[in-house]
Each structure stands twice: as structure tokens, then as C-alpha cells.
């Protein structure tokens, strides 16, 4: 599915980051990141490996704490939330992992049921089954319901990983390298799925990638992370029309590869 042009309300920011800094020992990864993500948009964060793209979304989801700066998600200051408040926020923020992170001792059905059962303990069996079948249908993998993750291909795992986050009906989706390690055809399918999810579930998404095809197909807006800061933001064409040598070398490297 191709991305449809949509109007983004720039007064309605669902994620707002100011002066975010994060270091691991002497290694300063994020050096004062400022970012706004608006309701309903797909924001693609581009950058080379090790520039802190994944660290950024782990901070947004509360998996990592920032060293300095404010990270405001859906009106909540993530670093200041208590455990239960953070849990409540996470119901609204889906996270699709680079390696899918499926629970390998559970079947696909159990993987999908897991977050649902734990967060809606009064659901009846028939309601759980309906929800599981609905999200599996949304990612086009209804036939895999009784399979183990080890029996799935890389692309199928990604789809199930996305389905598992969708089952909680999140308002924000965070995709960590959704096309990494996949063949070009599967990459196109995953890009299409990201757009479908955005259309169907009306989510706001941050897509972390270094794959320019994925960025072009899924992103309403591109933000390029260079040297720990967002050096440039705009549409795909605007970003790569930049004279910045680092941006141009990233573009040339991707397309010559």
C-alpha cells in the first residue's frame, strides 16, 4: 500500500523532546536532541548505525532514562512517571523490536494474547480470540496462529511483532529498524504494512531505519540524526536536497549499495 498524503496538524504534538542527552560511559550518543512528532504522522528517523536512533525510541518508551532533557509523550513527562503511570502510558505506545522479540516458548496465538490478557484481565475467551484473529488478519498471517516463532520466516516474525503491539490498540507506534535483515520484496511488504497500520489504526509512528527506500515509502517527514543531533528535518526530497556533505554521503552510500 502506498503512502497517502495527509494534512498534519502541527499544533497537536504527541511527542515533544527538548535538549535530550544520553551517554554510555564516555560515549555521548545523544547531544541535545529536540524533536516534535505530530498527531497522525509517520516520522522516519534516519542515521548511520550507532548514532542513537534506537536509544531515542527506547527513551521515548521509558526503557532507558535520559541523562538530561525533557521527553514528553502524550502529555506525560516520561522520566518522572511512577511505575504504574509508566505502565499506563505504555498501553498507548507500541514498540516493534528490530529482532521482533517474540516470546520463543509461546505459539503465535500465545504471543498475541500475552499483552492483552495481562492488561485486560476480565476479557472472555471469545473476545480474546476475536482480538487475536483481528490483528493477525491485519498483518495477513492468520494461517500461522498455532505456529512457534522458530517456524516463521524473518518477515513473518516482523509482522507478528507488529501484530502483538497492535493488539493493545496503541496511539503511537515505534518501529525499530522494521526492514533490517529482510529481502527487498519483504521490505516492500513491511513498508506497505506500516502504511496500512497507520491508515487503519490512526496511529502516529516513529520509524527508525537506515533504509532509504523504507524512509521514502513510509515517511511523511524525515529527521536525520547526525552527531547526536537532528541535523535536518523535512520531507524526503527536502532532506536530500540539502548541501550537507554528511547527508549526501548517506544518500550516495545507500543507493550505490
Amino acid at each position, binding site marked *: 500500500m502506498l503512502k497517502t498524503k495527509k494534512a498534519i496538524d502541527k499544533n497537536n504534538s504527541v511527542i515533544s523532546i527538548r535538549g535530550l542527552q544520553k551517554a554510555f560511559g564516555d560515549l555521548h550518543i545523544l547531544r541535545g536532541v529536540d524533536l516534535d512528532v505530530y498527531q497522525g504522522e509517520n516520522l522516519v528517523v534516519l542515521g548511520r548505525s550507532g548514532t542513537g536512533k534506537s536509544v531515542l525510541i527506547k527513551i521515548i*518508551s521509558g526503557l532507558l532514562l535520559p541523562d538530561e532533557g525533557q521527553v514528553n509523550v502524550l502529555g506525560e513527562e516520561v522520566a518522572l512517571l511512577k511505575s504504574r503511570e509508566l*505502565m499506563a502510558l*505504555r*498501553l498507548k505506545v507500541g*514498540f516493534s523490536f528490530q529482532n521482533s*522479540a517474540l516470546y*520463543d516458548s509461546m505459539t503465535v496465538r500465545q504471543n498475541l494474547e*500475552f*499483552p492483552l490478557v495481562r492488561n485486560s484481565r476480565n476479557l472472555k475467551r471469545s473476545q480474546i480470540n476475536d482480538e487475536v484473529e483481528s490483528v493477525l488478519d491485519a498483518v495477513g498471517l492468520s494461517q500461522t496462529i498455532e505456529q512457534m516463532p522458530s517456524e516463521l520466516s524473518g518477515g513473518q516474525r516482523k509482522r507478528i511483532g507488529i501484530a502483538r503491539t497492535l493488539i*493493545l490498540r496503541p496511539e503511537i507506534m515505534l518501529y525499530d529498524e522494521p526492514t533490517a535483515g529482510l529481502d527487498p520484496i519483504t521490505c516492500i511488504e513491511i513498508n506497505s504494512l506500516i502504511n496500512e497500520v497507520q491508515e487503519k489504526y490512526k496511529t502516529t509512528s516513529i520509524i527508525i531505519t537506515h533504509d532509504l527506500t523504507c524512509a521514502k515509502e513510509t515517511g511523511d517527514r524525515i529527521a536525520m540524526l547526525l552527531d547526536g543531533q537532528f541535523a535536518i528535518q523535512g520531507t524526503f526530497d527536502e532532506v536530500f536536497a540539502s548541501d550537507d556533505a554528511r547527508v549526501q554521503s548517506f544518500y550516495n552510500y545507500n543507493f550505490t549499495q
Partner: protein
Amino acid sequence: MDPNTENQNIPPAKHVISRTLDDFFFTVYHVYQFVLRFFKEVFLPPYEFKEIIHQCYEVGFKSLPLISLTGFITGVVFTNQSRPSLANFGATSWLPSLISIAIVRALAPLVTALIAAGKVGSNMGAELGSMKVTEQIDAMEVSATNPFKYLVVSRILATTFMIPLLVMYTAFVALMGAFLSVHSNEQTSFAMFFSQVFDSLSFLDLFSTSFKSTVFGFTIGVVGCYCGYNSSKGTEGVGKAANAAVVAAMFLIFVEEIVIVAIVNAFR
């Protein structure tokens, strides 16, 4: 390389010692926090009853074949080893008493705990370590599930409940092994054997064994989960977590055995 330069690269012994001590106290503090978190989370809802029962099945029922075999052999071998010494004094009639005290007070808890440390502890270390490095624990966290409660609390509770039951079972199987050996050599009846067994045991023996087994079970659960839950990245980390879970649990079990025996003997 110039030998002088090589010597300059080796850190002085006092630095190595201070770093080792730093690491040791850092780990002790972390384990303390881990245990504290367990006691905090164990009483707070939601309660993962289904997972606790599943883990009890994994720890208890699945250990039965190994425990049965080891317990039985322990009973037979201990009896056969003890007989010649008692025979020298013409005291083989004391065998049931000697065996019961040895099995109930020391052998059953130790054998069960050491086997559980090897089987269950390493399994927990490897399983949680693998979940950690493949981001499955992070995945639980971002789907608004408390992984500590689901994975750690349920496992520690399972070992704490199941190890005392396994110890009772081991003691029974070992005594049955001992009875078969005594019966075949001394023609002692079943009733006579078990009458002597129970006569020689006191309430303190049963209480101390139950208490000891509970402590061993808690230790195996905490160490296995701590090593797995805090394993470093990569498959090497998973192997190290499994290995550390076994070694540390076994070491602690022996230390606890010494301390508890000393305390119980003070009351005897």
C-alpha cells in the same frame, strides 16, 4: 614487546584487589536490591497464579525422575558404606537410626538442593539470560507487563515452595533405598525399620530440615533469576549466566548449611 613496557601495562596488585573488592560489593548490593524488589513485588497485585503453578510444575514435577534416582542411590550407597563400620562394633542394629538421622538432617536437603541448583538454577539462568539478550524482557516491559513479577517472582516462589516438597520426597525415596539394603542384609522388617527411623528423629530435625530446604529453594530461585535477568548481551552472556547460577547457588547452599547447622546445634 619490550619487557619493561610489558610490566608497565600490568596493573599493580593493589589495583586488581581493590577492583575485585569493588565488583564484589557492587554485586552484593545489587543482589540485595534484587531481593528487596522481590519482597516488594510479591505482595502487590496482579498475582501471576497461573505462571506460579506452571513454574511449580517445571521445578517440582519435572525434577522427580532425577531426584528419585539420586535419592534412592544415596540411600542404598550410604547404608552399604555405613554397615562395615557398625559391624566392627556389632552395632548393625543401629543402622536405621544412623541412616534416618543422616538422611533427614543432611543428605536429603543437600542432595536435593545441589541437584536443583544444577538442573533448575542453570535452566533459569539460561532461560532468562536468553530472554534478556533477545529483548523478550524489554518486549514484556513495553507491553505494560511487569517482567520482574511475571518471570522472577513466579520462579522464586516456585523454587521456595517446591524444594521443601522435593526434599521430603528425596528423604522418603532414600529411606526406601536404605530399607531395601537393610532388609536384604539384616532381614529387618518394614515396620521395625521405620519404627526405628521415626524414634530417632525429633521435631527439631524435621523443623530444621524444612527451614533449611526453604532457604535453599529461595537461594536457588534468587541466584538463578538474578544471573539470568542481569546477564550481559550476547550468547556468551547466556552461557555465563547459566554457569554462574549453578556455581553461586551451590556455594551459597554449602555456606547456608554450615550456618543453619551451627544455629540448630545451639538449640539441640
